[in-house]
């Protein structure tokens, strides 16, 4: 293994550990020594990878957005219908919420709740563009093929992602009577019915 590969792996493990701690303990309650301690590395060395807690927080949102974007890209690259793709995207999102809850929790409870941390460097959609771009591609394909109704991007985006985010938030609050995957079929159908041409 080359040094650069080793460093990349270390970088990713820091991102994942910090993501978990931020998502569970909260951003402000988590310190850099907490993260370093969990990774059994020195605080000084961690700063070699990320120069501040804010920058680490910003890199995490890019990391989660790209990781989700890559999965949606695989769906976009298939010949499936828009209806099928909606089902697959909902499945990806809810599966991630179940298997890697920290990913979505981070988005909802750190990124959306601590805007001051992201105001310089993660303005607007900059740090979530990996994910947003794939949603745009999905909408563009859906309208081009005639399956989805042409409308303003944000009215469609808000309906789709607001809905999914809301459900995962409810899951995090432990108010959902059923497991999250129970809702995949109905929610996919609702989204499709709302967006179809």
């Amino acid at each position, binding site marked *: 293994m080359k040094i650069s590969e080793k460093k990349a792996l270390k970088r990713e493990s820091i991102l994942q550990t910090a993501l978990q701690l931020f998502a569970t303990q909260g951003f402000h309650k988590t310190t850099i020594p907490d993260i370093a301690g969990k990774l059994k590395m020195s605080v000084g060395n961690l700063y070699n990878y990320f120069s501040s807690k804010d920058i680490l927080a910003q890199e995490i949102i890019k990391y989660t957005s790209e990781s989700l974007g890559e999965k949606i890209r695989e769906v976009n690259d298939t010949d499936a219908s828009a209806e099928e793709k909606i089902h697959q995207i909902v499945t990806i999102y809810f599966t991630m919420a179940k298997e890697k809850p920290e990913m979505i929790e981070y988005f909802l409870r750190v990124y959306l709740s601590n805007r001051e941390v992201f105001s310089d460097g993660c*303005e607007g959609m900059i740090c979530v563009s*990996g994910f947003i*771009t794939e949603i745009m*591609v999905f909408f563009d394909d859906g*309208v081009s093929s005639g399956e989805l109704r042409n409308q303003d991007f944000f009215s469609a985006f808000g309906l789709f992602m607001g809905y999914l985010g809301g459900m995962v938030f409810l899951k995090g609050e432990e108010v959902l009577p059923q497991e999250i995957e129970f809702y995949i079929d109905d929610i996919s159908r609702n989204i499709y019915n709302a967006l179809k041409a």
Partner: protein
Amino acid sequence: MSKPKLLWLQSITCNGNTHSFLNHPELFSILAHFELIHHPVLESDYSFQEVIEGSVPCDVLILEGSFVQEGFLKAGVEVSSVIEHYAKRAKDIITVGTCATFGGIFKQKEPDKISGFAFDIEEKTARYKEYASKLISLPGCPIHPRWLSFVLLMITNGKKVEIDELHRPVELYGYTVHMGCTRNEYFEWKVDVKNFGLKEGCLFYEQGCQAPYTRGSCNKILWNDTSSKTRVGTPCFGCTEPSFPKTSLFTTKTNMGIPAKMPLGVPRRAYLTLTGVTKSFKIKRFSERLLEYDK
């Protein structure tokens, strides 16, 4: 040394390219390099009667207008036969305008029968093979007079005109109309033009501008040596493209706000990623009137 003999023939045309060329500030000094055998509106050495008899000389043949193999006659003679007669003899053939090159506006009348001389939209016509070695395409509706003078002067100076696969000179069509547009900063920062007549804003997002994917040098070689469509606030209609004419020229087709056609050669994901980033910023200078910003 004798001058190359220039013959300008028309098929189904509105005379747009003829008239555009008359706007060339150095028209007569350019024509002075040639012996003008026949021209639709300028004084020339031979009559049209002599032209259709097939008896006049021709080195450089300029063709204007869409083509139909049968049914378009002048003085009782099929125009296509007159053109092919001289096309065989010419050393260079220049199709001027989108009609002569790809079919253009007049193709719309009978799309199955009418085409350009050597191309039918982007497909090669049956006569392409015979004339390909001496063919230069100058699409545009109309062409800029300097595009034609560039080619004519290259020919008369014995220089090779580099061309692309549709036989367009790369010196003229290697550019997009977008390149050189004074609204480029607004394109970069995704700021729409808010109304007609404004200097501020890009016409690509809402007003139908096709400049980012249209080949041509309209913003490099300015019209009337002064300006261009996009500079004055009219969207580019894509008039040099094989697909010209399109409809709804003042509206950008979008899918949920995303332009249905991307700038030339730009992958959709690259474009969308950049859009997401630039739209995240509001730059004060681009939200104000140009002439009032520093006041």
